[in-house]
């Protein structure tokens, strides 16, 4: 019996454990296993191997509701169905509200994907580097906590992840948005080019408009073929999962790569309940898992633990990892874990039309748009609000369907070929200020079906956010007007709540000082160095870029540091 236990424990012992197999966990798995560490990936959701995408080849007419969500689904999932990507073709990759309840102290739209690959199957693939101004922002503007690293620390790791993931983009030479290792860029449309030119002229280069940078294989390299991926076919059906591996997902890229090393073991349906801390060794020694289906409890052991459950789940796991050394959660000596939750403000949009280029249209499909990097307060404070915003910009031209009449007349009209004006639009992505008053914490009594405390979420927008959104509406209106656009309308997105950005960050943030942060410059818990947090939870601030590329780079950097320390015997 004793021997059996030892054997069984041996089988459950690895060099490293990664919790979560989404964008960040996939990168941890790849780097750790590639460097020779026996790595266990624990994923709470179902198994989705690359290719397990049931709707991916379906034609539009094959969906029984032509893409529309059923009333039953909507009523049962008031939160998940708010996500624009939740549709008849993709609902199976979203967490359903009732299965995973949480408590909203303030309205928070928590959008989740629990499966192999996490939300990497669903994301919109926008990928921009941060600049030095972004890392320096919190110090310049007097935020409570400042970044312990700068652009120079992360730049080589941005390159590392860009080359492997495959990022398409144009080398624009902007200080505010550094260039990366780009594959061929997508093309701007006539009106997007026109807007770029007009803005260059009117603002003397201070408001560049560029083609979006995104994780698509526009020009696959040998490293991508080695992953089993092929050129993006420009279907723009990405939320279904891509059979070509045309965009970056953990499923198509990092997970199969990690598996190929022979060093990675993946266990699905494994809900990590908490991290086990050994009071004598003064280290984390493993994790406690609840099997999602059998509800059985199992322990796994490793010398290195990467926590990549996505921001809120990572906070839950650490807060729930209580020991006599850490009664308030692992590493939480300062009591600030779970605080400083921040997000991107997407609360407003603008639209318009352009009556030029009427002899032109676009052809084909582009899974991307143009992008306006942040132009407010980049190098110095210029406005009555702190920080700034990035914006999307897209201009497209559709055939309009003439729906007049009935019977044969209507039928004839439906076959008319006619184009409307060019339609233009922008969305807003505002930086928010990390604040101690925006937090997540564990409920003291309510638990989920696996015995994990439910989370209480308290995140609110503030006056700075409102002023910034107003500035977006004013500035974009001015820019659209200067470009000659008409029918310009700004919109408030009624019912938009924090969380719906799906860029929630913070709670376990990086910083130099253990008094006000949880993680050091290598993403190690200050007080438990063999635990690394490299998903959104680690972010000291949020800047205006889509965050996932930065999670990837931070993860790769931290994982390589972990391997070095492991080999030196320091962990």
């Amino acid at each position: 019996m004793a021997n059996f236990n030892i054997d069984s424990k041996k089988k459950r012992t690895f060099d490293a454990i990664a919790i979560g197999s989404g964008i960040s966990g996939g990168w941890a798995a790849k780097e750790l296993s590639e460097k020779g560490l026996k790595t266990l990936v624990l994923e709470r959701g179902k198994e989705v191997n690359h290719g397990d995408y049931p709707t991916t080849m379906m034609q539009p007419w094959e969906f029984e509701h032509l893409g529309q969500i059923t009333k039953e689904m909507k009523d049962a999932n008031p939160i998940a169905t708010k996500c624009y990507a939740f549709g008849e073709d993709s609902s199976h990759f979203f967490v359903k509200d009732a299965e995973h309840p949480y408590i909203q102290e303030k309205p928070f739209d928590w959008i989740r994907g629990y499966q192999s690959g996490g939300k990497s199957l669903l994301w919109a693939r926008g990928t921009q580097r941060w600049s030095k101004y972004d890392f320096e922002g919190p110090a310049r503007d007097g935020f409570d906590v400042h970044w312990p690293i700068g652009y120079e620390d992360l730049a080589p790791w941005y390159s590392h992840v860009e080359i492997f993931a495959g990022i398409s983009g144009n080398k624009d030479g902007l200080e505010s948005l550094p260039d990366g290792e780009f594959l061929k860029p997508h093309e701007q449309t006539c009106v997007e080019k026109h807007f770029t030119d007009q803005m260059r002229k009117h603002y003397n280069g201070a408001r560049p408009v560029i083609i979006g940078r995104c994780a698509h294989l526009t020009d696959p390299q040998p490293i991508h073929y080695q992953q089993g991926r092929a050129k993006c076919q420009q279907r723009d059906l990405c939320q279904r999962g891509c059979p070509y591996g045309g965009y970056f997902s953990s499923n198509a890229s990092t997970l199969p790569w990690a598996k190929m090393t022979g060093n990675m073991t993946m266990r699905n349906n494994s809900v990590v309940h908490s991290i086990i801390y050994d009071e004598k060794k003064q280290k984390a020694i493993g994790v406690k898992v609840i099997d999602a289906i059998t509800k059985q409890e199992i322990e796994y052991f490793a010398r290195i633990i990467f926590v990549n459950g996505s921001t809120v789940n990572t906070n839950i796991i650490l807060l729930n990892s209580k020991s006599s050394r850490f009664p308030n959660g692992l590493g939480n000596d300062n009591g600030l874990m779970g605080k400083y939750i921040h997000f991107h403000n997407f609360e407003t949009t603008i639209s318009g039309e352009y009556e030029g280029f009427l002899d032109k249209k676009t052809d084909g499909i582009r899974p991307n748009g143009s992008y306006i990097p942040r132009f407010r307060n980049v190098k110095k404070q210029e406005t009555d609000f702190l920080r700034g915003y990035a914006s999307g910009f897209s201009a497209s031209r559709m055939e309009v369907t003439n729906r007049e009449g009935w019977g044969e007349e209507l039928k004839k009209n439906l076959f008319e070929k006619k184009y409307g004006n060019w339609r233009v639009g922008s969305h807003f992505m505002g930086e928010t200020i990390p604040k101690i008053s925006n937090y997540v914490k564990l409920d003291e009594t309510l638990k989920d079906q696996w015995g994990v405390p439910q989370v209480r979420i308290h995140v609110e927008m503030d006056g700075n956010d409102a002023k910034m959104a107003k500035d977006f509406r004013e500035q974009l209106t001015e820019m659209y007007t200067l470009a000659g656009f008409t029918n310009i309308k700004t919109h408030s997105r009624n019912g938009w709540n924090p969380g719906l950005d799906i860029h929630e960050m913070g709670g376990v943030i990086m910083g130099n000082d253990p008094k006000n942060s949880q993680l050091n410059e290598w993403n190690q818990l200050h007080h438990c160095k063999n635990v690394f947090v490299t998903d959104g939870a680690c972010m000291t601030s949020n800047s205006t870029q889509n965050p996932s590329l930065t999670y990837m780079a931070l993860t790769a950097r931290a994982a390589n540091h972990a391997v070095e320390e492991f080999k030196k015997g320091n962990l």
Partner: protein
Amino acid sequence: MERRNVIKSLGIGLLGLGNLPSWANNWNSGSFEHFEFENSEMFAKIVDCIIPETNTPGAKSVGAHKYLEKVIKDCYSEQIQSEVKQTLKNLEKEAMVKHQKSFEKLDNLQALEILKNNTANKKTVDFFKNLTIRSYTSSEYYLTNHKNYQMAPAYFHGCVAI
């Protein structure tokens, strides 16, 4: 690993959908065909008179009536559903009064007259029209013959002459 080889051997990475995991199975069954339609004759007449068969397929041959019934049942509120029921009743009543025939037995012109001139239920009639157009313009016939629809164009040109 196996899957990777499959992808490789197909070159372009197009996977068959033969062996999906069990959670995905409901996407394999042709559930569309198996539903029962209480009002299918009535809806068939409605979509047929809105977009009739000519020398090209009309709304009925692309299955718009099945779509209408299904989408109304599955995707709309009870309020809208009861308005639909009421409208169907009214159309039927009017058909009987005017032509002493059930609505579904009318010829298309007669049916269309009743539909178009039904001011009491204009909102619902317009809703039928919109759904019929939606179904028709999403059909394989319309998209491939009229829209030059390609699922995977593999290119994008931002500025071409019309």
